Structures are given as structure tokens and as C-alpha cells.
């Protein structure tokens, strides 16, 4: 099956290794993967800040770029939720486009959801060994129902030991521009998350969205925790290719 990979703007800039990890996982699942070269941002920052016009322009751009793909896969529940839930809402008053965006929504998946429910990945290529705890990022969890999928994939890795934290489904405080506009509240929410992570004693905190990971890592390090590893689920599942 022909799968278009949308790496997301945050991964593009901040941690390309996640994009390559997603690529390896999709290939391991037997997919033919294309990475449209003009991809940029799904439009969520503008959309959530009230700029619907900007979000619409980027939605149309993405629709065109992934036109030939049987599936669109993203290593982010939040950006996948943007395409699956919010693109159709943005164009609900335009019958022709609304149908195109419904079709796009129907073939767009968050990475772990795709690997488990569509590609039915058998063996996980990564060789991560150690304890970890999993944070359920909000949009993936509540908009797409991503909760069992990453855990099912991690369960295929013999070296991985999952220790669930308290309130794993509570927001880490990122929220895109919220993390800057309401820094104090956001920091407190990240702090609560860090405490729950620390209480598990796990060696790594893993999640499916880089935004949350940057927020959690930023707070962990500021608190003086330099040891807990902060990893995207794709990096754990694919084996951590060092970024050269």
C-alpha cells in the first residue's frame, strides 16, 4: 500500500529522527512510503489561534500534496486529529470540498493507530531495552482514540517494561501557543506530569506527540532531571537512529 508520510513541522525542525523512525516503521510494515517534498505545516497553530483562513489555505495545500496516497500517516495525534476532525469542520459549508476532506480524513492515521489497525505490523524492529512510562497525548487520545495502540506495539518488544504513571491521560500543559501565552499555568501542568513520571522510576517517558515531549523534557531538565530519557514512540519502536 502506498502511504504518504507527513512528518509534521515540529519533527521537521526539532527532531528529524522521529520522521526517519516513522519511515522505517512504515517500511517494516511493508508499505511503499512517499514523503511529499513540499509539505510544511498542517495549519493547526493558525486554526487554534482563531485564524481560519490560514488553516484553510494549508488544508488545501495538504489535500493536493497527498492526493495520490492511499493513506496519510503522521507521527502525531494532534496533527492527525487536525486532518481527521478539524479539516472537515472547516469546510463543512462547501459541499465539494467537504467531500474531499471527508475522504482525506477517512484515510489519515496517527502512526501507531495505522501500524496496529491498518498495516497490522507483526514484528517491531526496535531493540529498546528498559523501563518506560507512556503519556497519552490529548488529541490522539480524545479525538482519535489512540491509547491501546502504542501499548500494543510496545508489548511486542521483549526488552520493554511499561510502568503506568498516575494521570497518564491528563494534559502535560503544552497546548501549542498556550505554553507561551500562559507560561506559568503551563509550567505547573508540566510540573505535575514530571512528578508522576518521577514516581514511576521509569528510565524514559514516551509519547506520540513531539509538542508534549518538548514541554515535558523542558520541565524535567529545568527541574534538574538530566537522566530520564524523553522519546517519541516511533523512536522506541524503530530503534533510535542517531541523527547525523
Amino acid at each position, binding site marked *: 500500500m502506498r502511504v504518504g508520510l507527513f512528518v509534521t513541522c515540529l519533527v521537521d*525542525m526539532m527532531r528529524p529522527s522521529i520522521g526517519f523512525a516513522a519511515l522505517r516503521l512504515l517500511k517494516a510494515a511493508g508499505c511503499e512510503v512517499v514523503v511529499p517534498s513540499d509539505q510544511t505545516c498542517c495549519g493547526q*497553530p493558525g486554526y487554534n489561534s482563531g485564524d481560519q483562513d490560514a488553516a484553510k489555505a494549508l488544508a488545501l495545500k495538504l489535500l493536493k500534496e497527498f492526493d495520490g496516497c492511499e493513506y496519510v500517516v503522521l507521527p502525531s495525534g494532534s496533527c492527525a486529529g487536525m486532518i481527521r476532525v478539524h479539516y472537515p469542520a472547516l469546510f463543512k459549508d462547501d459541499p465539494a470540498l467537504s467531500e474531499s476532506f471527508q475522504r482525506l480524513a477517512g484515510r489519515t492515521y496517527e502512526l501507531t493507530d495505522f501500524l496496529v489497525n491498518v498495516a497490522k505490523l507483526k514484528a517491531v524492529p526496535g531493540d529498546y531495552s528498559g523501563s518506560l512510562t507512556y503519556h497519552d497525548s490529548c488529541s490522539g487520545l480524545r479525538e482519535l482514540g489512540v491509547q491501546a495502540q502504542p501499548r500494543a506495539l510496545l508489548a511486542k518488544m521483549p526488552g520493554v517494561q511499561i510502568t503506568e504513571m498516575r494521570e497518564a491521560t491528563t494534559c502535560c500543559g503544552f497546548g*501549542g501557543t498556550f505554553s507561551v501565552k500562559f507560561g506559568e499555568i503551563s509550567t505547573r501542568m508540566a510540573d*505535575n506530569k514530571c512528578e508522576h513520571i518521577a514516581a514511576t522510576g521509569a528510565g524514559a517517558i514516551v509519547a506520540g506527540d513531539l509538542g508534549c515531549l518538548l514541554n515535558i523534557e523542558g520541565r524535567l531538565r529545568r527541574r534538574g532531571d538530566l537522566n530520564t530519557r524523553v522519546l517519541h514512540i516511533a523512536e522506541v519502536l524503530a530503534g533510535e537512529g542517531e541523527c547525523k
Partner: protein
Amino acid sequence: MQVTAMHFKRKAGANLRNEKLQKALEKLQSKFVDGRAVVIAELSDFEGLRDAAAAIRDRVLNNLDGYLQHFEQEATARGAVVHWAETADDVNRIVAEIAAQHGVQRIVKSKSMVTEECGLNDFLESRGLTVLETDLGEYILQLAKEPPSHIVAPVVHKSKEDIADLFEQKHHRPRTTQITELCREAREVLRPGFLAADMGISGGNFIIAETGSVLIVTNEGNGRLSTTLPRVHVAITGIEKVVPTLEDVTTLLRLLPRSATGQSITNYVSVLTGTKGKEDADGPEHFHIVLLDNGRSRLLGTELQPMLRCIRCGACMNHCPVYQNIGGHAYGWVYPGPMGSVLTPAFVGLENALDLPNASTFCGACAVVCPVKIPLPDLLRQLRHEQVKRHLRPWQERAALRLWSWLAQRPAWYALGTRLVVRLLCLFAGSGKRLRHLPGVSGWTNGRDMPAPTGRTFRELYRSGRT
């Protein structure tokens, strides 16, 4: 009530540093979040029930004037008088007129958030009337001269020690921190108030069109006393609270106490219909029902109409990680949490509550627990959209977003821009791979490091043949 929502950020910051408040807010998780989960699990089809409840509320809102007229007919036929109040001031005026008409001096009140919208107590007191709040939480706040910080648990921001101090100071009795003793003390002070009152004021959780009844759910019994002992009862609620039939209301009642306080049902569910009849042992001689608009009808037919489904359970705030950390007072008006962040701008003006629609991570916890399926994040996003349309956002924010959107629509410029940014961030970060300060995003870096990018963008690496 005075609107102070413009100070949201400052007050939220102060509340985060208020250790006593932080300790008090811990109750939310155990008492409300965990408690709700247990009783929701009793329901065989919670999602089906939510759908049914939302459908009832939508049916009402799509024909609100019709149901309200029906309610007025039925209530009037049973001896009640229905008053229509367009504004909060109208409520105050109407209640003062009713008090004057019946020669009222002493008023007891059971809990009502709508009267908080009106500042009714202050108004009536300024007219020389005595008003006694009889809901325990509201009574405590009346003594402390503070507004509620939660719509169901108004005093959640206080500890029992705070209340012990307050009671000692106001009641001049020996200090106790035993909750049963504190309750007994309040009861002893309140009881003569009930017996002496000429008028009882209540809210209304629902008003029922087919019978002209006002329904209130309470736990302390003060609602029953306030609405049946005094010779005059005035029920005050919002126009959106009408429900077609008693059967409809039972559907909503399966959800309201469960969502609000984690109870399958409240201790009292009072359906108050008409005035005292010849054969009735109790009940008011005069029953007035005041229905407030105060901006509600403006939401009809707009994207915000689903907000009027709200049955005021408070589940959205109990489950909101922002509310859980800052409490209710920071929101700066009557209604806090996610529902307040929609209602406050809608009722008092978007320009008077700029922060509120933005004070959400869109985590979606509120939408998942809402018993009438109000899409709260979508409504907040709609308010953000209106802020952008009306140029109410700061220019720096608008400029940054516009630049990002411009770049993202032009892949070549985007590629260049992101390469530049990534290299600059790496340069600033140095060997530590983290930024401790970053101009323009101090909101982030004041409390967190910014992890530096790894060096080159994905698109650069991918083009260079890496897999």
C-alpha cells in the same frame, strides 16, 4: 457581579503560588473526578444517555420561545406569577418590587448562580432588606464576603481550618475543625433565619413546561425550607433552563447529580408547582418565577448555541487541568472553568475577557465529560476566531502567526526559514543542547528549558539521501 476577567493571567499566577489554595484544590480530584467516575460506571449506556440529554436540550433551544410560553401558561394556571427579565438589573428591580408588594423584610436564599450574575444580595441589602444565604457553602462565603469559586462547590477554595477561623470570628463560639460540629453550628445560626423569613429565594435547575414547575436539586434541605416555609417564594433562573416534560427531566436528572457531585441522586429533588393549596400543609402563598435572559437569547442561532444546553453540573471545571491548578476566582466573573470561558465573553463582551477563550490547551477533557455534549473546545476556538476577526489579539501574536502561515504556504521560503531558525537555535544552545532563555518566548523559558533542535531539518536530511 463585577467583571475582573481581564486580570486572569495575574490572578492565575498568584493562585498558583497560593499554597493554601493549592492544598484546597486537591479535593477536586478525589471528591469530584473519582467520585463521578464511579457513578457514571453504574450507567449501562452513558453515551446513549448523553445523546438523549443533548437532544432534549437542543429540542428546547430550537423552539425556546414556544416552550417558555407554554411554561408561563402552565405556571400561571397553577397560581404562580412569571416575570421576564431582560437584564440582571431587571431581576433586581423585579425582586425588590415583589418584596415591597408583599411587605417583605427578611429573606432566606438557597443557592443560585443566576443571582450572582445580578449581584442580587448587595442590591437587596442596599434597599434595607436582610438576606441570609442558607446553602452552607454560600453562607460561608456571605460571612467571608467572597464570591463563589465553583458553581456547585462554591467554597472549594477554602479549607476546613479557614472555615473554623471564620466561624469563630463571626459566631463568637469556641473554634472547632470538626466538620459535623461546624455544620451543627451553621444549622443553629440558620434555623431562626428560616423561621423568621418572609420570603425565600431559590434558583431553578430546570423549569418544566408541561406542569409549570420549578425543579431544584439540593443536598442540605435548605432548599426545601427556603421554598416552603416563607409566605413568598421567588425562583430565579435563566430562560434556557426550560425542559418540555417531567419525563424529559428524569433523563437529565440521571446525568446532573452524577456529573456534578458523583451522586446517583441528590438528597433532595424538589418539584415546586404552584402556590399552597387549601389541602396543603406547607408551601408559599405567593410564588413568583423570574426568568433572566442577560445575553442568552443572543446566542440562539449562532455557533455558540450549544452552550445553552448547559445544565450547570461543573464537570467541565472539575476535569479541566487549568481550573484544577488555578481555581475559579481567576476567571473573574460568575462562571469559571471551560463553561465560564465561553459564557463570560458571551455575556459580558469578548473585549472584557480576552484571555478566557485562550486559557485552554484544548485537551478535550471537558468535552468528554460534559453530560449534554457541549463541544467546549470548539466553542472556545470559535471565540478565538472572533477575537482575530475583531483585531482583539496583540500585534506581536498576529504578526508571528501571519509570518508562519505565509511561510508554510511557500515551501521554498519555509525551507529556508526553518533551516535558519534551526541553525540559530543550535548556535544559541551550544553544547548543552538546551536553551535557558529565548527572546520572545519567555513564557516558555521562564519555567522550562527549550530543547534545541538536533541540527538539520528533516527535509534537508531526507533530500541528502538519509533513510
